[in-house]
């Protein structure tokens, strides 16, 4: 049985195991690259965004009417001769199914893949009650032989090699099997056909339970689900209430995205639509019986939750795992309890409780890659942060979060501490930009990057002396600095001010601004985020600004996309004030490209070879990576980089909590950058500069790492 980590130290141990599993790393690493390419290829012939929107809409609607749809489904299915049950809990569902087996005189059960049956741990119950249960999906069969659990929703045995599987198959067949994939597939063909024939009851899952006609659909490739549904006399279906779908039309919409997202197929080999028990020709009486067990297990509760209800848009395609940089390194066994990946972190909390979710839910870097591909457009990172919020609400947060909240919500205290650190660090920086001689508290795990020094003088302290005078400005802007640029990398802002002033933009810097709140949001400190969010909105709201410019993609996306949630229905900040603030937030690249219309003629092109790191929030939240690339191309020679838009592994507090994973992600990133043979890599986020420059320094990568603003400031021509 799968377990969930009970402490950080236990979890780190498990993660280390996965990181040292070369086979797992190789398979997942190759898969991640191939998946991205193949998915993009098959998405080209559909309106991806439109279909995802349509899925989100119908799933929202279906979730809101779950109980009515259940009634309608039940009526239609019963009309066609099926029996329909509703189980409140996982145990109840298992009991119902065991009772059906007993009533029907079943001995042998054959199963096709069902994550819902993993959720209820159905096999344990049926085996304990004396039934012979055989999984028939190739991947599920393999892991059943090994007494393991799925490590991926669609490819349950993705963590295993052909050599391991050949060994398992040799044992079960008592014949030496070659590690040849085609041959191994045929072993399953030969071994399982007799089980299909001998099975008394088939258990399948269900992708869409269609209310208008009481049909269940299964979306499969191997053909085992059709065998499970056809060969035995009894067909039992276990299905979550969230799979209820109003009509065939919605299923047809979702079927255009589900296989594309799951396995980069236009459609799977088979989609079965079973509406009631058909004639069964295995005996002269000739009638099949069909039982459909719906599982609640928290679904009707969370469907009323204003934030978590979004989770019911999930169609279990597994795309969120396929693109997750953390999953790619450690696999599903270490990134979930039953369900894995981004959706798994959330469902573990909803279906299996706080205890199981407490440490697992911390293992998200917040890179937005999952949000960007989700078939239902679920804002997965937001829901994962919400799980952390609820843990803190219930007194299950950690000390680091509470301390951060205490310090960061008190701007004056926070900034004095940073100024103090600037002085106190002298013995460790040796006057360089890095903290070279770190005290013992920084353990070996954190040694993968050189940490930056706090700047001698913060940007806010330099501002009075560097604020440019602009007459008849083309636009009035205020800079939102964020902590990293204010206190560590003021030069990135100084460079931006130079570019803006050169194009006659009036710049202001409101002193009352503070941390954007993202670090607190990542720690589940909802109240802390709300506190700093109010401070920031107030700091800017009265100024006469056309735009509020951010040079940190993470801050920018927090202000623009998280504030509306955190400050919704706030008693202090009215929605009008909030809207005005949010609408003015503009990232530096978008402002320079779209508002100032900077083009090649605005720069001296030194033909320096410059590559790009697309920061997570720049690519997937602000959606401005293309603009950054255009600006690079105007000021230098842009060189494309492999996996340019993949996360660098920083994630703020993430890299402190999971340094071993962060280290692996950044080393792959820097290797890709070095492979471009560029002279410099630029990005629109100081967090990424910290991570990439820090690792490049440790690895002696010999590449210059700067903010995009610095490249632009070096090359901008005076008007």
């Amino acid at each position: 049985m799968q377990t969930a980590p009970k402490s950080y130290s236990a979890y780190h141990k498990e993660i280390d195991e996965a990181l040292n599993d070369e086979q797992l790393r190789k398979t997942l690493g190759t898969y991640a690259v191939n998946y991205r390419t193949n998915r993009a290829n098959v998405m080209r012939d559909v309106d991806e965004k439109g279909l995802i929107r349509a899925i989100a809409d119908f799933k929202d609607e279906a979730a809101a009417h779950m109980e009515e749809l259940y009634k309608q489904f039940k009526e239609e299915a019963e009309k066609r001769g099926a029996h329909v049950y509703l189980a409140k809990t996982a145990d109840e569902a298992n009991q119902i199914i065991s009772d059906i087996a007993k009533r029907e005189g079943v001995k042998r059960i054959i199963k096709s893949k069902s994550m819902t049956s993993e959720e209820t741990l159905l096999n344990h119950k049926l085996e304990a009650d004396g039934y012979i249960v055989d999984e028939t999906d190739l991947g599920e069969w393999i892991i059943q032989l090994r007494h393991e659990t799925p490590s991926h929703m669609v490819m349950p045995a993705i963590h295993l090699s052909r050599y391991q599987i050949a060994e398992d198959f040799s044992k079960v067949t008592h014949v030496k099997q070659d590690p040849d994939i085609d041959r191994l597939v045929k072993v399953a063909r030969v071994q399982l056909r007799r089980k299909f024939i001998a099975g008394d009851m088939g258990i399948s899952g269900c992708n869409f339970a269609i209310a208008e006609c009481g049909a269940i659909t299964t979306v499969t490739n191997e053909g085992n689900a059709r065998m499970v549904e056809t060969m035995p006399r009894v067909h039992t279906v276990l299905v979550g209430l969230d799979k209820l779908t109003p009509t065939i039309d919605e299923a047809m919409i979702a079927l255009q995205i589900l296989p594309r997202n799951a396995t980069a197929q236009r459609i799977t080999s088979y989609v079965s639509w079973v509406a009631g028990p058909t004639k069964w020709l295995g005996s002269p009486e000739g009638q099949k019986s069909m039982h459909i067990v719906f599982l609640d297990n928290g679904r009707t509760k969370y469907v009323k939750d204003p934030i978590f209800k979004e989770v019911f848009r999930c169609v279990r395609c597994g795309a969120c795992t396929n693109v997750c940089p953390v999953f790619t390194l450690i696999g599903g066994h270490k990134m979930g309890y039953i369900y894995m990946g981004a959706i798994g972190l959330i469902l573990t909390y909803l279906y299996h409780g706080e205890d199981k979710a407490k440490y697992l839910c911390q293992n998200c870097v917040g890179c937005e890659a999952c949000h960007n591909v989700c078939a239902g457009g679920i804002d997965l990172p937001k829901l994962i942060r919400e799980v952390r919020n609820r843990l803190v609400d219930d007194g299950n947060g950690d000390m680091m979060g509470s301390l951060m909240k205490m310090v960061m919500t008190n701007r004056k205290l926070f900034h004095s501490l940073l100024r103090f650190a600037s002085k106190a660090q002298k013995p460790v920086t040796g006057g360089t930009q890095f903290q070279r001689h770190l005290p013992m508290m920084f353990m070996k795990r954190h040694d993968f990057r050189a940490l930056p020094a706090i700047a001698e003088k913060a940007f806010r302290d330099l501002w009075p002396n560097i604020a440019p005078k602009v007459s008849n400005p083309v636009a009035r802007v205020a800079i939102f600095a964020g902590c990293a640029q204010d206190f560590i990398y003021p030069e990135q802002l100084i460079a931006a001010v130079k570019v803006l002033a050169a194009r006659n933009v009036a710049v202001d810097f409101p002193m009352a601004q503070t941390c954007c709140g993202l670090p607190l949001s990542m720690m589940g400190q909802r109240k802390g985020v709300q506190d700093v969010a109010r401070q920031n909105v107030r700091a800017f709201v009265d100024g006469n600004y056309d735009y509020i410019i951010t040079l940190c993609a993470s801050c920018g996306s927090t202000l623009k996309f998280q504030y509306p949630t955190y400050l919704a229905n706030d008693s202090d900040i009215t929605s009008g004030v909030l809207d005005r603030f949010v609408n003015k937030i503009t990232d530096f690249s978008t402002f320079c490209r779209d508002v100032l219309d900077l083009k090649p003629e605005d720069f001296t092109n030194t033909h320096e070879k410059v590559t790009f790191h697309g920061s997570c929030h720049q690519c997937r939240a602000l959606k401005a990576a293309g603009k950054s690339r255009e600006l690079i191309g105007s000021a230098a020679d842009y060189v494309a980089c492999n996996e340019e838009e993949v996360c660098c592994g920083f994630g703020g507090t993430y890299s402190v909590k999971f340094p071993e994973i962060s280290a692996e992600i950044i080393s792959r990133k820097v290797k890709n950058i070095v492979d471009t043979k560029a002279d410099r890599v630029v990005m629109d986020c100081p967090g990424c500069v910290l991570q990439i420059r820090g690792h490049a320094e440790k690895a002696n990568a010999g590449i210059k790492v700067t903010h995009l603003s610095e490249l632009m400031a070096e090359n901008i021509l005076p008007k």
Partner: protein
Amino acid sequence: MSNTNPELVEKFTAMAKAVAATVAEVPSREEAFKYIVDLTLSKDPCELLADEPDTEKGPLGPNRVPTRVQRVIAAPSLDDEAFAELDKLCQEKGILCLRDNVRKYAAGIDLGLNEAVAGVAASGTCLCPTTDENVRLAGMISEISVIMLKKSTIYPDLPSVAHIMREAIGQGASFTTLITGPSRTADIECVSAVGVHGPLAMHILLLED
């Protein structure tokens, strides 16, 4: 019923081929049946994936199981006239042509013939009513699945066949299947392989009206 749209036929053909299906245009039903009989005779003998005590067995197949000496085609969906026509051709060549009792041959048959009521061009998919267990098994336990599809019944995409699905599901108990290419898996090291629990190969015969 709309007339044949050559663009849809072309798209359907390309998409079906992309998932390892063989697509052939046949001018008549007679030609289709000839195609099926030839295919059955030219393929390797069918492997027996389960015990069939009274069946005449040939040498072991590639998966080290006995093969079936008698060639078998299942074509349970055909109407009386069409079945008689195919059966006659089969008898001439010594092939057993099944119309019912397909379950008895669950260890494996050479070829199963199905008829689609609609095609989906965007993915090379066939929509097959398979409520009759014999019809369903024909496309599941055969080594080669052959589906006959009228060119004029090819639609652009899945939403455009929703009404046909609705009709096929109907008001009573039913089983309908969307079929696209042979059975496949990528469960071992994400490497795609065909022929897991269903057919090893698939042929689609495109017919004029």
